[in-house]
């Protein structure tokens, strides 16, 4: 009756699998850099317009070595993290509430759906109008971009909570509050996490654009500023840094998702 134990050998083999998939992912990226280098090296595109990686990558190094990049990274992260955190802290509880009360969700879902369809950048002039150029407007646009997918996914998650689990919880002595915190919230968590990842990627996108329009610091700002001042290698270096930031963000959130919802995809 004991059943089979699969727990023991899972750890190391899973790490190996991750390492392998990471290694495999490096091959096409290496290929991409090779093609990029080749395009310029063969003279198909002028080096003044497209800095080859052999020059851009050392520029990345220089950005870090001189410490110049850190204030910009810090500025971007501050805006992004604050805006995203506010979106999550507001979006998740509100979404859970909307999704738990059926008539509220029936009434509000079309509104959320409509606002979500609006490209977030379209709202940037509105925020600048109200909040001026600067930190507040940038945080506001990040909140706006991140909150809709978070809200919508949380509502979907709350609506999709298995009624049978709620029923079981009632027979086990759970009251309304306990059902909300101990059943609805964890049951909706996988869907909420999907919303968080989507929200983060929207926020990232919008933040960079907002920094190009109305900021004097941040990764978005230096990319555009380098272009204005014809520091093309530095511009490509900043773009590379931005790409790495995006990848790190995505992996970080995936990791968090696995940590918080280890049962996902296994039920």
């Amino acid at each position, binding site marked *: *009756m*004991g*059943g089979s134990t*699969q*727990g023991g050998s899972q750890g190391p083999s899973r790490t190996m699998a991750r390492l392998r998939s990471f290694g495999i992912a490096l091959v096409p990226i290496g290929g991409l850099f090779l093609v990029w280098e080749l395009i310029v090296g063969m003279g198909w595109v002028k080096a003044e317009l497209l800095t080859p990686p052999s020059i851009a990558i050392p520029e990345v190094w220089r950005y870090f070595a001189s410490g110049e990049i850190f204030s910009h990274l810090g500025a971007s992260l501050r805006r992004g993290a604050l805006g995203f955190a506010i979106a999550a802290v507001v979006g998740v509880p509100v979404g859970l509430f909307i999704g738990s009360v059926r008539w509220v969700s029936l009434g509000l879902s079309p509104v959320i759906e409509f606002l979500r369809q609006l490209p977030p950048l379209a709202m940037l002039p509105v925020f600048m109008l109200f909040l001026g150029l600067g930190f507040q407007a940038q945080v506001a646009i990040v909140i706006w971009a991140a909150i809709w997918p978070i809200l919508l996914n949380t509502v979907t998650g709350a609506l999709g909570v298995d009624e*049978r*689990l709620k*029923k*079981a*919880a*009632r*027979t*086990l*002595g*759970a*009251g309304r509050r*306990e059902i909300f915190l*101990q*059943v609805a919230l*964890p*049951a909706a*968590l996988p869907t909420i996490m999907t919303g968080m990842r989507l929200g983060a990627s929207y926020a990232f996108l919008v933040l960079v654009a907002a920094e190009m329009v109305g900021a004097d610091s941040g990764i978005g700002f230096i990319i555009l500023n380098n272009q204005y001042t014809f520091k093309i290698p530095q511009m490509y270096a900043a773009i590379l840094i931005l790409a790495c930031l995006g990848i790190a963000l995505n992996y970080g959130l995936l990791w968090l998702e696995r940590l918080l*919802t*280890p*049962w996902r995809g*296994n*039920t």
Partner: protein
Amino acid sequence: MSAVTSMPRLSVERVSKTFPTATGGSFQALNEVALDIAAEEFVSLLGPSGCGKSTLLEIIAGLQTPSSGRVSMDGEQILRPGPERAVVFQHFALFPWRTVTGNVEFPMEMARVAKTERRRRAREYLSMVGLEDFGDRHVWQLSGGMQQRVALARAMACTPKVLLMDEPFSGADAITRELLQAQLTKLHRATRKTILFVTHSVDEAIRMSDRIVVMGTRPGRIVSIFSLDDATREHADKMAELRAAIWNLLRKEILPLGEGEAGNEIRGEAPST
């Protein structure tokens, strides 16, 4: 005095239940069901699909209210669910975000049992179903039979007076099913809890029950009640007789519905009488 001592643990008094239908009419799922269950009894509800077994069980659990009639436990009307009537569902209804131990601890958390005490008792209930070594596992790492045993341990953690079980073993394969049945019989002997067990397997009902309540359909109602004990279970010919009697009743209930699909609902070999 004697009236008090003989008070049934569970009392179902002329319970009817109608559901509204999509077309605006109404559908009668239960019609005037009456049943008393004594404190240490193991009672099976046996009947074809759709005869209202789950509905009756959920009414006793307090998850649904009867349209008319009344259910009570130890003389007190049942109005809402409570841990003194633990339910084991066919689909387990375990919480996938909790470990095995976490699931068993859930009702104790709701009852505000202190943490160390919870841990100790969770282990105790898990060893009752032979899963003491699996406490740290996630639910999805266990087989269906093991998950059902976790659900049973979790129900026991409510320290219930009554166990309500809705086709708990119907998803298990034949061997697992036998083991689960043996385990439940043992648990009943050891704890003497009242058990109401819904099944649509004649053999399963015969194997474990003190009484078998045969239900019929359209509308859902009690057709007949059979009593049996371990002495009867020893007698092969008496058992064959009982089985034949139950099958005859069920056949009458099922045949009007058409031979095919409904007939397959009842598991086990029909005796050729």
